[in-house]
């Protein structure tokens, strides 16, 4: 948060039609400022103007010009501005950037104060295993789809998490697909379940996989995990946050 006092005001002048990797430059810059934690930024649209090329650009009623001037403004501390300027110059392309000293008389306040500050999330890093299970969409276990049963079984066995993916094309373990449906989008798509947990936990789950998977592939690989969690191990004292604790 900015506090009252000395600060810098940055203005970036662009043309409305300018693009950066296929998206409007102003939205790339706005995203950059947003995700780099700038306190606030505004995009202003000019109604007429000219720039380095000395072409007069104006909005007429008959045509919608995409060359109108745009100006992005934000106010930040000197340190923050110097941290951002390099990348901004790159993003602005042919546009102009102006920095001026300013004095902040009254910083903006967040309009709706948060009821409770969310507990800081915890970052955990370490070695783990990734287990991928390749099966067919039509495979069943007892009365339900096999992928469904596997997810439930993993959940019951405290595997940290699992995601099911459906392939859009493929062939493999299933001989029937290999033989006749190889290049068609079939109703028996390839399904992949991907789970990450400690090697011990995944290995202890394997006997269940043995029982449930008749035909398929299980693939283990080493992964480095970086996990962000609101619930640090053992210090789970906060009440559930409404929706904000999604991991």
């Amino acid at each position, binding site marked *: 948060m900015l506090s009252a006092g000395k600060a810098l005001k940055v203005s970036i002048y662009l043309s409305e039609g300018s693009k950066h*990797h*296929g998206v409007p430059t102003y939205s790339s810059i706005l995203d950059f400022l947003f995700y780099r934690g700038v306190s606030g930024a505004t995009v202003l649209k000019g109604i007429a103007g000219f720039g380095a090329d000395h072409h007069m650009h104006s909005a007429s009623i008959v045509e919608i010009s995409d060359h109108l001037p745009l100006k992005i403004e934000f106010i930040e501390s000197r340190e923050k501005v110097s941290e951002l300027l390099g990348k901004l110059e790159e993003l602005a392309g042919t546009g102009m950037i102006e920095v001026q000293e300013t004095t902040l008389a009254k910083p903006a306040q967040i309009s709706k104060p948060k009821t409770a500050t969310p507990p800081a999330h915890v970052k955990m890093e370490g070695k783990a295993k990734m287990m991928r299970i390749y099966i067919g969409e039509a495979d069943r276990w007892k009365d339900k789809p096999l992928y469904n049963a596997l997810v439930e079984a993993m959940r019951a066995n405290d595997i940290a998490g699992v995601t099911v993916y459906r392939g859009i094309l493929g*062939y*493999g373990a299933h001989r029937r697909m290999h033989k006749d449906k190889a290049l068609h989008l079939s109703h028996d798509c390839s399904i992949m379940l991907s789970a990450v947990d400690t090697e011990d936990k995944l290995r202890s789950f394997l006997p269940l*996989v043995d029982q449930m998977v008749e035909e398929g592939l*299980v*693939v283990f*690989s080493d992964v480095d995990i970086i996990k962000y969690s609101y619930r640090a191990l053992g210090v789970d004292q906060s009440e559930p946050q409404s929706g904000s604790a999604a991991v």
Partner: protein
Amino acid sequence: MMKDQFQARMLRIHFGEGDKWQGKPLHEAIVAKCMELGMAGATVYRGIEGYGASTRIHHASHWTFSKDAPIMLTIIDSEEQIEKLIPHLDAMVEEGLIAMSHVEVIRYSRSPEKA
């Protein structure tokens, strides 16, 4: 039911859904090439959002890029087989990324034929 366990390589190829090879979608061409070379299997996944080397956002629901969702193709096979495939990929993938990792595989099969 047969169960066997071995070490293998996993190849993941990332590119765009709009990429072509000789007029045909690149992912279909690669899967066809894999079959031709007798690779054990190949699966194509379509991402719902992402960005890559070109730093263009691929977003499946955005109409302008709807034909350019990120595609990931996964192949698991022995090192020799993977080595056989790589020169073909060099020719076919103009812009994309290939990631290779060592994996441990457990295979379940109904019939005890063909290693």
